[in-house]
């Protein structure tokens, strides 16, 4: 089987697995990185949302063969290190608003929220209701109102 080399949370990794195995399973089943969750496997629920070179993406829809040595994957486990702190400001906002209920979707929610705020700030504007409406991550516990409040707070404070 072919070797695949890429970077995860600041470290280079090499895995020996078929090209077409989706990255979600490489992370979870081979590398033991379980922050990204399975919720659908077809890029719909967004529970596995992580970052690829700083952009939000869903590892359930990326074959590991599509990654190269320069590709940097950030999962929820590696998010704080991207800002050099114990917790990313978005995680702090999540704690301040006691957002999580069961918590299963929350790593994906936070990773999507970070990307949303980054994008909105790069456009030099504030987060709107329409921005929040555009998030597709499912929360079956229905924590949506607290997610909205936490993102708005993090965007303002951060």
């Amino acid at each position, binding site marked *: 089987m072919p070797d695949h080399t890429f970077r995860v949370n600041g470290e280079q990794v090499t895995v020996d697995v078929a090209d077409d195995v989706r990255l979600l399973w490489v992370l979870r089943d081979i590398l033991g990185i379980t922050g990204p969750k399975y919720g659908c496997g077809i890029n719909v629920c967004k529970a596995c949302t992580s970052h690829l070179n700083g952009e939000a993406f869903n590892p359930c829809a990326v074959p590991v063969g599509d990654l190269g040595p320069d590709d940097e994957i950030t999962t929820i486990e590696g998010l704080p290190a991207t800002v050099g702190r114990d917790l990313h400001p978005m995680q702090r906002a999540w704690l301040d608003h006691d957002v999580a209920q069961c918590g*299963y979707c929350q790593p994906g929610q936070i990773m999507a929220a970070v990307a949303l705020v980054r994008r909105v700030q790069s456009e030099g504007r504030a987060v709107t209701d329409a921005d929040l409406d555009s998030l597709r991550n499912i929360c079956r516990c229905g924590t949506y109102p607290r997610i909205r409040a936490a993102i708005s707070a993090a965007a303002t404070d951060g």
Partner: protein
Amino acid sequence: MGDAIARRRFLGYVLAAPTLVAAAELGRTRAAAAVQRPPAPAQLPSPEITEIVDLNDMMTVAAAPTANLISVEVHADGSVSFALPRAEVGQGVTTSTAMLIAEELGVPIERVRVTLADARPELVFNQLTGGSNTTFSTYTPVRVAAAVARTRLLDAAAADFSVPAARITLDGGTVSTPGRNGVDIGKLAAKASSARVENVAVELRERESFTVIGTPRSRIDALEAVTGQKKFALDLHIPNALPTMVCRPPTVNGEVGSVANAAEVRAMPGITDVAQISTGVAVRGETFGQCIDAVSALRVSWRPGTAEGKSDDDVREELRAAELPLVPKPPLTDTVDETFTFYFRSNSALEPNCAIADVRADRAEIWSSLKSPIVAKQTIAARLGLPQRAVTVHVTEGGGSFGRKLFFDGALEAAEASQRFGKPVRLMWHRADDSRQGRTHPMATSRVRISYKGDTVLRYDQRHTSVSTDLGHGLGEIITATAARLPVGDIGFAETFFQLSQTMSYDFGFNSRLLSETDKGFNTGSMRNVYSPDVTCARELMVDELATRMDRDPYELRRAFLRDDRSRKALEKVAEAGDWGRPMPHGLAQGIAFHAEYKAVSACLVELDCRRETVERPIRNAVAGPRVTKVVFAVDVGLAVNPRGLEAQMMSCINDGIALALTSSLHLRDGHFLEASWDNYFYTRQWNTPPEVRIIVLPDSSDEPGGAGELGVAASVSAVACAYRRATGTLPTSFPINHATLSFEPKPTVPPVPQSPTDGRDHAW
């Protein structure tokens, strides 16, 4: 006053252990209170069984004879631990339990570690998480155990300090007396222990002195949740427990005929095992991705299932045939009379059905989120042919439940697959499996007839007819074992459940409600709030209809007919805070509804935008539909242990209610459900959640907590339905409102799971 103290006095135990282990009997003290409640006088205008005894009482009564213990342990490092015999699935019971212990013991909540107990068969009925009963049934026993610990620590310190225990205080985890340095409880844990089991009489703290209970607290597992460290069943590292999936039939509960290419599939990359099990063909491999490939490659001939050939309309006909008749309407009265249809709904959580199983020749070990772990353990032992004591069942943190985890479908399959393979397995249902073969809220109809004359309502009759709800997860056993001791007569347990969970909150003269069930061919279960979302939605819509006929305001009519002040306060609060009756543009309307259950009351006011430009707003792969723009929700659970957690539960219930009213259902076609994805089953998403939500926790009205985890669904779905009626001028009679329009392209049933996309990089943003 003497009574008040007596009500706070209980007997607990200290157990024989090298460190302090304080214990209490789960259920017993509460049960005594519950059965001694005087029966309601017969002359009440609408005698309500739920005023005498409700589902919570029944579950608590059921626990009484088990006389088994829960224990609070104080460790040498000053930490306190407690294994909760309930499931945590997001509802916050580990946090509220830690609060009870922190309060009664006098330690900071950060020192209290609450874990989930393994299946404990000796608890018999007392390890079932359901009926929003956890806080209600554990409120006193958990505090008694913590109070025993406090008492023992004070006694140990008294001996140490050589002063009377009355002069010693325990606060913030430190024991102190005037003139001496404080001592951490960890240092006293061994001294306070006992070499034998002893009775300890304790007096619980006075309500007025609470500093933890009743204050808003964040979840104790919040940090783990936001850092990805919280471990669910699939995240556990059990050696050699490789990914395992099941190739499932194309119709509900279809069976395997034959497998044409098992050897070929076994030779696929990464695949280690392929074997037929009772629900399909199990495959085990290095990654779940390879399991999906294997499931897709299997060529299986299938035998018919248990709903073969049936579609929504066929079930609708079955329900029509099974509906119990109403008595003739009273002469010379007017009536409002309507039948409402509620289609199948999925209680799939985001964490799919899953479990780890390690079955050996002489023993088995299971890890799964289970709300009925004792029944799971017994059933798994029987399936494996092992003695019950050889099966260990660990209860893991759950990624949502909504009633789904009352059952243990994944755990049973994992055990079977592990036994067949002779290897440990980490079994997961695909989302498509979870949606198509998983448990559902049964399709139902509810007919309501209200008879009135002038301003007087003479009688209210409701006939609820439903596809059978499977209660085979332990609640059935509780009801069977206790029903004879409760004043409900000789009726089956579904009817008992129905009667004990429903209440008639309005003084509408004589009232009757009956449940009739039909068709056991579907995988059903008690979805969050069980019968109430449908029963209450039908009732509340007809209350609005009655108000129109009587030319009265829907809020004023409810207020006038609600049976007690506590209920009226909740309704009045949402009307006031939500500015009931404010003028709104054409196509927008408010809706208001009320629901009481679990010894709690709730009222909901929503504003709904049904304007065409809103309903038809474009959203990729989704239904938009009417938008709830604002929700005001008032709740009184008696005593709110954790108001922040209570708000979270109501928020959750509101989003459930919106989905049930407007968007989420399963479509049954030709023996199978069409939905196979979160973009098919339209649970509320950000674009349909209300931008403005205000939850009002009303002042405590009792010394004891009621139930909350499911409470808010019924009022929410009802308020949305009522708002829809007022906004559109049309009484909706089938739910969800968009069910008639199929808003997605159904995925194939063979293979049963869709392949993962490969274009993820193109969609990075």
